[in-house]
């Protein structure tokens, strides 16, 4: 009971510091949340694009059906291959014609079917990276019936790079925000501790244990974290709703991520308090 009363009184007596701490905590966690939302949406976008990563294997003209079936079977057996679809010369040509249906002049200029038969090779999700797609394409190209295999090397590599940058940015932002929050809470609690040094001295004189003296401050740190994290999540949701009105495809964080964000803030608040009080009591 004393712990709750002392924590509440500390917050009430240091209203300005509480306001400042909560404000900075809200801003920091909000910025972190914005990065999380951006990352989540970017990853979702990248994942959608990566679904389209497939290998197109063009066959040498004139191969008989048994050779084509053999090649198909060999491709299907390669590690990382999800499915193989055969596209005949005729089908390729009719697709081309369908694509250019609004330009009949161009079609008239083509007298014979120039398109080779091909395999459309879909990859398993884990294999939709530049490195792995390249390795599979190489194996397909080595087949006797295959003339060439292509998979959009450049844009697959670019997607990989985007994912890599997002992860690095997220980790960097997370670490920077974690340290700035820790520093902020550390200093705020230290000021609160300093403001109450007389009370702490008296508590110590009349036989209060370190834990008894420390607990209200830890609770205040936890309060800064929980309330700051809660407000930041609410603000993040409000901003997301406003953006979603114009861009409905923008996703928000899963509830578990929101919970994690608040817990992260609480942990920062608590840890900041632990350091500041430990330093004061040890002095």
């Amino acid at each position, binding site marked *: 009971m*004393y712990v709750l009363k002392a924590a509440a009184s500390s917050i009430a*007596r240091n209203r300005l510091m509480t306001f400042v701490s909560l404000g900075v905590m809200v801003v920091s966690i909000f910025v972190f949340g914005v990065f999380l939302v951006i990352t989540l949406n970017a990853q979702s976008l990248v994942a959608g694009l990566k679904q389209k990563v497939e290998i197109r294997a063009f066959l040498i003209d004139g191969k008989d059906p048994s050779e084509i079936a053999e090649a198909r079977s060999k491709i299907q057996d390669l590690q990382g291959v999800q499915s193989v679809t055969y596209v005949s010369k005729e089908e390729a040509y009719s697709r081309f014609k369908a694509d250019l249906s609004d330009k009949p002049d161009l079609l008239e200029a083509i007298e014979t079917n120039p398109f080779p038969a091909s395999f459309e090779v879909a990859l398993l999700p884990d294999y939709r990276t530049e490195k792995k797609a390249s390795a599979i394409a190489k194996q397909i190209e080595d087949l006797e019936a295959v003339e060439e295999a292509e998979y959009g090397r450049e844009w697959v590599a670019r997607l990989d790079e985007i994912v890599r940058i997002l992860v690095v940015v997220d980790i960097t932002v997370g670490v920077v925000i974690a340290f700035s929050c820790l520093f902020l809470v550390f200093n705020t609690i230290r000021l609160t501790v300093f403001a109450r040094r*007389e*009370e702490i*001295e*008296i*508590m*110590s*004189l*009349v*036989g*209060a*244990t*370190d834990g*008894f003296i420390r607990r209200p401050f830890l609770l205040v740190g936890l309060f800064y974290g929980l309330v700051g994290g809660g407000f930041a999540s609410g603000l993040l949701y409000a901003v997301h709703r406003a953006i979603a009105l114009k861009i409905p495809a923008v996703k928000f964080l899963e509830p578990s991520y929101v919970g994690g964000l608040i817990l992260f803030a609480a942990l920062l608040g608590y840890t900041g308090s632990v350091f500041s009080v430990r330093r004061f009591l040890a002095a």
Partner: protein
Amino acid sequence: MVEISDVNVTYGNKWTGLDSVTLSIEKGDFIYLVGPSGAGKSTVLRLIYLDIFPSQGTVNVLGKSTAGISRSEIPLIRRKIGVIFQDFKLLKDRNVFDNVMFALEVTRCPARIRKKKALETLTALGMVHRRNEYPYSISGGEQQRVAIARALVREPLILLADEPTGNVDDRSGGEIVELLNHINRSGTAVVMATHKLDLAENSPHRIVYMDKGKIVETRAKCTC
């Protein structure tokens, strides 16, 4: 109760707080530590309430040697020691009653018992009628009585008083000394540090004269 044997206290490498001090305090003792500012009186008290530790020598408080004492043991010993100061050290944002209760609050004494004991102690010290007042609205003498009440409410075995009359007028000072005598008669050992030589010499109690961190003379308790 307290054994201080050949103790040196140094601050940093330069200033010597105490130099070869030996002092024994028994149950029911009343000891005056007298001397000018910087004589080491407060340092002796700080040794007893475990605020500082000797650089050399041994200190034994209530059966516990301070050598190798853990931080967690200190509060338990302090709960048996009352301390009052020249500047009272009352919490300004709490009234008289809450200031006294505060000493029991930190020991997790149940609220009902806290209130009962605080009321009894304030009554005994003649301050119960001022229980709702705040420190800034009562006199220095009354503030010191509240500080004494806060020290006594936990029924300490030793009461340490560091210049308790330093911030009050002579009349209030006399009343405080009389109060400390009364507390001592009920069995609590009292150690009072003061620079007022006449105050000590007009009493029958043991006097320890200090100067520059040393005990320079001791006058035994007068049995007359």
